[in-house]
């Protein structure tokens, strides 16, 4: 091989590598746009749809329960937690330097996230009685405490998965077992004792087992959506850098940033 051939070979290789890198960058950008503007809102809207859906134990008919007021309060607290835990970088999502359509899409996504949060709570809260207020109180207490704790995005999602998982087990396994239609004598006795002790305030409506499956699917979708948010926010590149550099970099307007 002559030196000229070697030189041409190097140039061609560099050109191919650059073209590959550019193509990868374009694909990454498209995938992020797809996740951010289509997949995530659709996912959160599905959670909003299924969160209030129950199936009647008698007729197997659909029952749609709109989110109670307390779930909206809980969703507000959770939204604050998302911002505080840096799961949502609000100043980057909605900025005067962004294109209007981008800002609009991000605000719309935040709306869907808010209603998905409210419906995720609706899905695991008992529908009425003392237990509804007990569950609401524990959710409020936990979220209020979390607001003053140190969180990063991944830790926050893990904590929320555990919180919703616990509520799911309590409502759809424990309570459904105590008050369900197909229960043994021991469960009947335990249910009657609980009713007696609480003067009937623990009364909770009975739904078909399908309601539990729907709730499980809803919560799984919600947590999956939360896990996808950092991907949509292009965080993986900046996570590798030093936190101080990242913080200073994030303070720059989007047009001045090296990593968009």
């Amino acid at each position, binding site marked *: 091989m002559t030196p000229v051939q070697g030189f041409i070979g190097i140039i061609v290789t560099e050109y191919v590598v650059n073209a590959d890198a550019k193509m990868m960058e374009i694909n990454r*950008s498209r995938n992020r*746009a797809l996740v951010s503007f289509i997949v995530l*809102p*659709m996912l959160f*809207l599905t959670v909003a*749809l299924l969160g209030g859906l129950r199936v009647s134990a008698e007729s197997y*008919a659909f029952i*749609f329960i709109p989110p109670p007021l307390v779930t909206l309060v809980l969703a507000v607290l959770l939204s604050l937690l998302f911002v505080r835990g840096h799961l949502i970088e609000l100043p980057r999502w909605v900025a005067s330097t962004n294109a209007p*359509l981008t800002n609009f899409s991000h605000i719309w996504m935040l709306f869907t996230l808010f209603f998905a949060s409210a419906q995720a709570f609706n899905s695991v809260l008992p529908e009425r009685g003392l237990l509804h207020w007990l569950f609401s109180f524990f959710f409020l207490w936990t979220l209020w405490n979390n607001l003053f704790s140190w969180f990063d995005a991944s830790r926050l999602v893990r904590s929320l998965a555990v919180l919703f998982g616990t509520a799911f087990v309590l409502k759809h396994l424990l309570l459904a077992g105590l008050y369900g239609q197909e229960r043994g004598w021991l469960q009947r006795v335990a249910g009657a004792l609980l009713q007696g002790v609480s003067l009937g305030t623990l009364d909770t409506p009975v739904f078909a087992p399908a309601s539990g499956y729907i709730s499980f699917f809803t919560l799984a979708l919600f947590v999956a959506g939360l896990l996808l948010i950092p991907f949509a926010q292009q965080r993986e590149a900046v996570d590798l850098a030093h936190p101080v550099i990242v913080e200073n970099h994030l303070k720059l307007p989007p047009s001045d940033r090296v990593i968009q």
Partner: protein
Amino acid sequence: MRQRSIQAAGILLTFSYAAFIIWIYATEPRTFKEVATSAEIAAGTYQIDQEKFNSALALFRREQFRAARDEWLRADPAQGDARTQFYVSYAFYREGWGRVYYDQDLIKQGLEAVNRAIGLTANGSFTVDDPNLQMHTAAELKAELEQATERSWSDVNPFKVMRTRK
């Protein structure tokens, strides 16, 4: 440019989906079949089961009002057809009518049905050309049903037993 088209498509798609969810929660369908029926009504393609309607009409003419209503319910499960609701209301009226007194429960249900029928028409009035009926408009039927719910001194008039059912 590609990103902007993804954004626009996303907004369009998710807004339609959100509208669907609001509609589902507003109409509260109980089964997948009801979801389909409600969608047909919203799209303006809803049609009643004509065969069941005719068999209900035959029962109505034989004065089997309860059976007729059941059949009409099956013909128009979404209660979205004004004509069927008019006949349902008429069946309630005829069954609730009494020479001495009206069955208020049935009359009340008849009023609900006729109000539904009026609500389903664009201008709130329509005519049914059936020679077997004495009232042909929803307004006439509604007035008769409302009169049946009212109490007055004329109720104690002994000549009231001479009145006829329409």
